[in-house]
């Protein structure tokens, strides 16, 4: 059995603990640093597009997501965090991401 298997969600080996440096997580720091500035939103969407949809996101969808994100406030850390999550949500909702070709 693999020790410290991070995919073990069911607690079958609950006596094991996963060291911090082996835990799987999503690093939001770059996404957050881009999400607070309306002028950088297109870079943010580009980056998510490259990471998840191989840069195939259509211009229309790209612009739609950028314009939508501007409607969401970016007044404090919570706002910015939520903006970043919505950016990811919308890119991951696109057929370009979901259909691998």
């Amino acid at each position, binding site marked *: 059995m693999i020790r410290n298997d991070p995919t073990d969600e069911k607690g079958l080996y609950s006596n094991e603990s996963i060291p911090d440096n082996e835990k799987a997580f999503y690093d939001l720091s770059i996404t957050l640093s881009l999400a607070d500035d309306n002028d950088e939103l297109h870079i943010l969407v580009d980056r998510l597009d490259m990471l998840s949809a191989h840069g195939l996101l*259509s211009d229309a969808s790209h612009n*739609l*997501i950028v314009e939508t994100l501007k*409607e*969401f*406030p970016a007044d404090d850390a*919570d706002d910015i965090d939520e903006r970043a999550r919505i950016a990811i*949500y*919308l890119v991951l909702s696109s057929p370009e991401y979901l*259909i691998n070709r």
Partner: protein
Amino acid sequence: MSKRKISRRHFLGEASCAAIGSSTFLSTALNLAMINTVAARPHIIENIDDYKAIVCILLAGGADSHNILIPRHRDRYQECLDTRTSLALNHRPDPIPGSDPDLLYDYYIPLNGVDYDINGGMTGVQQLFNSNKISFISNISTLIEPIADKVAYQAGGYKLPLGLYSHSDQIMQWQNSLAQDRSAVGVGGKIADLLNDTQSIPEISMNISLDGKNRFQSGNQALEYAIKNNVTQNNIGVEGLPSWYSNSGFLNQTKDQVAQNILEAEYGNLFQKTYGTLTNNSYEAIEIMQAALGKVPPINTPFSGTSLSQVLFLMAKMMSVQADLGKNRQMFFTTFRGWDHHDNVIGSQSGMLPVLSNALVEFYAALVELGLEEKVTVITVSDFARTLTSDDNSSDHAWGSNQMIMGGAAKRWTDIWKLSCNSIEQQLQFVR
């Protein structure tokens, strides 16, 4: 795979075999032919203004249903006791009035008009049976052709259901009614394929699932509409934004609208186009379902907190707004898991049978409250029965089981059950 050739005589023989309750879903071939005939005559369909629904409860794992029904007569009970040994409950034909109700789980309690008793954990089902609202179909399972007895079975030469005694195969065959085939299309799905054109509001399927994707409700075209048991008018659809936004309502709308706009764009790739259409249909379905849920009348019948009771509660709500969902024919599906008792059969069942029994009683009461008790039929299905013999308080996978049918149609089933009671004797013959 070659088509199975059968003569007309053979076919009719199997059909009548099914009519005494030996084959799952009661000879679907014949019933589907009837639906097909109806569907081919538009003038009949125009007159369909009543409502009917089927509820299918899968007791997944293969419930030991020989502990649900037991012969009452002393000699036959003794026979059962000799066979089942540690799996037979203590027999008290007349439970002591005023005794500790918990103790009743160890007893069988009498059913009126038949020579059988029912597990003491199912007082609700006992009452439903004694008032002709529920019946049993005994010795029912997957079957390709009749097999007379154990001798004939051991002699071989008969077509047996594919993967007999295997959970996945038998669950599949209970749902598609084809014991000779591993078909992905279920009975409810086939019915929906034939009747879907008679129903309005295509965004919501005739088939509503409270257990995600399932074979029973999958047709060639028809799919199930899957919901969770905690769905309400205010808790449906995609996850919303945190409520600390001052204008979260507007922002939620914006988010969902944009997600839909992305999906509505023209996509050259067929998969992308199909994904876009399907997902957008689900957004529309959410709105229709949300509006319908808003019209659910108050239902005063109390439901327990168990998952099964809550599932049936939601089904009752769905039925109360069938007109708003554009349906006068509906099929519901859910699963009650955990019946694969390879250990501690009696103990485990004493916790689970009351859950099933109470849920059925509550659901029936809600149907009466909604005036739907004659229109809704509930059936239980399970992978298979379990061996009569005991292996250290456990039973193993077997074949013919005892299932329940509840609702307006169950009255006629009471007579059919009496007919098929003989087959319990056959089951005993099979094991010895």
